[in-house]
């Protein structure tokens, strides 16, 4: 039962094979059993979950159930949740009981989803392995010696290990897609501005975007229906007409034009990954799609420009953590400077501090033009590359990550090595485009995903391609033995 998709669970609930309360209890039991080893959750909200589940059962009994009513969900601990600990994976917020909820959380609650708890993540979403969390590393359910990816590693591991039916994540440079690839699940980063950032703790404001981590593309579409849409509380959320993301799921792929970026399929691409991608392409071709090469000439500059823009924005976003109004405060500060410096140095982990320093440097007098402004110019070039490519194709297909999940500690020695993990995903955030990852096979019993990138607001098309692929393959149904 717990490995079922949202769609399957909803019909089981409709048929009264189970109740939301039973289902919630079953997930809670499994969390109790497995979380000590996987470490996917920072906080489990059992009592609240059961209360929400009871309410969901009542709504269903009244005949008012929607597609997510009574479905257990896990929220990345980056989303503020009223009266629930919200840590963002940091000691800095180890005691932050949020007085308010994020729009994403409110909307899912309004849709009847049952919150099981808050999932582990890289500290302030800065990381690609979930090893920077103050709450310890998350283990990949496929191989517990390996990382689940990051920064939404807890959410991805929870979905893969059936510790929830679906989960929220956020993606600033690949933080939904890369863990989805490593954990063998489906993840979607929507177009920038599609989902409200209100209540989502900021890492890099112009790149951050929330999205679903699920067991199928269809589930992702259902979650998108709940969370997408303009929000007056977020000035950067786009004013778009409401959209049904499931509407195109059943469309044929006949005539679909798929672009393969030559930069993604270079000789540097891991041959095993390349083979699996070729296999996936064949499936799509068999469904009527045609492929052609596209050129993203500035793709190699995406990691460098990202590591200016994201740290620069982060350096300012994280200035509010000063030990004054909430969060971690050092013991017995002797003066104001001591309060600031010790609270921040003791409250933040090494990777966060490193990025704050890089961002501060990039913005400081004399370097602004050479770094920040230059990075923003390259950002435009990267966007223009995609715009040109989408003149010719409907979606772009390529790898999500260079390889399968790596071992804990394997890439910790040099930050730059870790940063290059996101070489295929980062450009999508810079351009603000929707991107998703879905499993297309395994290498040595470890799952790996392919990435689909769409033009702005092209989520429904991406979900359609992914759904059609999943109707004809069963990689998304593979589960680790935990």
């Amino acid at each position, binding site marked *: 039962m717990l490995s079922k998709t949202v769609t399957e669970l909803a019909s089981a609930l409709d048929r009264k094979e189970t109740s939301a309360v039973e289902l919630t209890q079953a997930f809670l039991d499994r969390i109790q059993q497995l979380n000590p080893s996987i470490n996917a959750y920072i906080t489990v909200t059992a009592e609240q979950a059961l209360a929400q589940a009871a309410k969901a059962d009542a709504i269903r009994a009244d005949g008012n159930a929607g597609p997510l009513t009574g479905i257990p969900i896990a929220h990345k601990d980056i989303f503020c949740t009223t009266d629930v600990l919200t840590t963002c994976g940091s000691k800095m917020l180890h005691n932050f009981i949020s007085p308010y909820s994020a729009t994403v959380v409110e909307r899912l609650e309004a849709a009847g989803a049952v919150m099981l708890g808050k999932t582990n993540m890289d500290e302030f979403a800065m990381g690609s392995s979930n090893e920077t969390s103050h709450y310890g590393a998350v283990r990949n359910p496929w191989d517990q010696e390996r990382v689940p990816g990051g920064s939404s590693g807890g959410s991805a591991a929870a979905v893969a290990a059936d510790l929830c039916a679906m989960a929220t994540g956020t993606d600033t440079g690949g933080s939904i897609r890369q863990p989805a690839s490593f954990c063998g699940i489906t993840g979607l980063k929507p177009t920038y501005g599609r989902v409200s950032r209100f209540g989502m703790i900021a890492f890099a404001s112009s790149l951050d975007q929330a999205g679903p981590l699920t067991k199928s593309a269809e589930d992702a579409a259902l979650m998108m229906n709940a969370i997408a849409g303009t929000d007056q509380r977020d000035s950067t959320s786009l004013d778009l007409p409401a959209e049904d993301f499931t509407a195109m799921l059943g469309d044929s792929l006949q005539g679909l034009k798929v672009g393969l970026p030559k930069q993604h399929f270079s000789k540097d691409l891991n041959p095993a990954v390349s083979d699996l991608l070729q296999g996936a392409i064949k499936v799509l071709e068999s469904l009527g799609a045609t492929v052609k090469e596209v050129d993203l000439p500035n793709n190699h500059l995406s990691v460098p420009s990202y590591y200016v823009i994201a740290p620069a924005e982060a350096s300012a976003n994280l200035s509010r953590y000063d030990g004054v109004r909430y969060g971690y405060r050092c013991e017995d500060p002797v003066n104001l400077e001591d309060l600031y410096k010790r609270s921040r140095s003791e409250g933040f982990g090494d990777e966060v501090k490193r990025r704050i320093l890089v961002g501060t440097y990039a*913005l400081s007098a004399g370097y*602004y033009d050479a770094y920040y402004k230059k990075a923003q110019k390259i950002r435009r070039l990267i966007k223009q590359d995609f715009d040109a490519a989408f003149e010719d194709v409907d979606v772009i297909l390529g790898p999500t990550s260079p390889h399968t999940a790596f071992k804990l500690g394997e890439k910790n020695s040099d930050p730059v090595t870790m940063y290059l993990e996101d070489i295929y995903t980062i450009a999508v955030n810079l351009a603000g485009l929707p991107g998703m990852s879905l499993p297309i096979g395994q290498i040595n019993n470890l799952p790996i995903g392919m990435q689909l990138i769409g033009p702005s607001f092209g989520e429904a098309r991406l979900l359609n391609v992914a759904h059609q692929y999943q109707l004809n393959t069963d990689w998304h149904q593979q589960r680790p033995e935990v």
Partner: protein
Amino acid sequence: MTWETVIGLEVHVQLATQSKLFSGSPTKFGAEPNTQANIYDLALPGTLPVMNKEVLRMAVSFGLAIDAEIGKRSVFDRKNYFYPDLPKGYQVSQLDFPTVGKGSLTIEMEDGTEKVIGVTRAHIEEDAGKSLHEDFQGMTGIDLNRAGTPLLEIVSEPDLRSAKEAVAYLKKLHSIILYLGISDGNMAQGSMRCDANVSVRKKGETEFGTRAEIKNINSFRFVEKAINHEVERQIDLIEDGGRVVQETRLYDSELNETRSMRSKEVANDYRYFPEPDLLPVVIDDDYIAAVQATMPELPNAKRARFVSEHGLSDYDAGVLTADRAMAEYFETVVTTCGDAKLAANWVSVDLLGLLNKADKGIAESPVSPEQLGTLIARIKDNTISGKIAKTVFEAMAEGEGDVDQIIENKGLKQVTDTGALESLVDEVITSNPDQVEQFRSGKEQVFGYLVGQAMKLSKGKANPGQVNKLLREKLNNG
């Protein structure tokens, strides 16, 4: 050696909105600490700014009032520094693309000369909270009620050449913002705050000297004193062979001196960059035209109109238009009585005198403009004399009722009945035989005395014109 002073002012004006620049918190002055600070104002994680429409309108109206270039696309930036009254660790401000660009305003000095002062820019930004240094077990208390209140920072060119010019500029700005109704301009409560960049140079030099910035001067009087003090300090320093250092100084109004502030940031590196949580604010010509259409008549235009339409002297027009409320009061008086010159006299002499004595503003005047207008009308229709009018005015100020009521109750109605006046005049002639004799023998000066006697006898109620006429007739015919 003669020295020239160069001053540029940065004036922070709190815009009189209901809610804050980026949050729906109220902006009332004097509330209990931290009761007007919501999750955004406290910079809780995940909170985001949403801009207040009214702030934009107010900034644009100010720009139009000083004939400034209006930024069709203004961009907010983050100005980064750590201070406990700045909860986000950055202030949202405008650096390269302010809402109001280059403009100018004309100041008038006491001797009547005029001077045009350039305004470099006026940008929208957030106010900070307040640090309270009273002792809380040796700690400082932080109140964030003011954090996020909208400010317009108006930056002048270094065009001011004396403390007096600086004060005149500040008064002009004050008058404009009150006319526009975009701020209460209350300097004591910090709604209008002034930083002055002051430097000196030898007369004839074209390069500017090194400037010191004097922070947070909170009254017109202190602006003049603080600048004069600073100028003296700099001249003394240079004449003693020293050099002015570029620094921030704080004016101490009790000691009347400026002193160096412990530098806030070792090197002021604010690391400005575009605020990614906000998008560019874009306005078009229609928007600007709509703001223009709602603009009130501004002091200079009103002053010119008072001269042309009401026939006032430029001086009187200046006095009456310095304050928008005063100008409106005056015009209501004119409408009621139909005599602008009398109205100008009564408002600028009698009413202002009364208000100054009671230390009240025009808005708190105990005599309404309609009441004053009626009073003047009663002089004009000969119901009362100008002298009696002063008595009625005083009675109104004491709250004794309306003009006609007071005239009635106190029996102050002017005597115009010829019969009554004749007997009055007869009585004066009878009881002052010596003076009558002197007049008749050619001593014209005595006439005034006799008129005075008649007025006195009537307790001021006799119509002086009629008394004059009757008395002269009777004396000449007698």
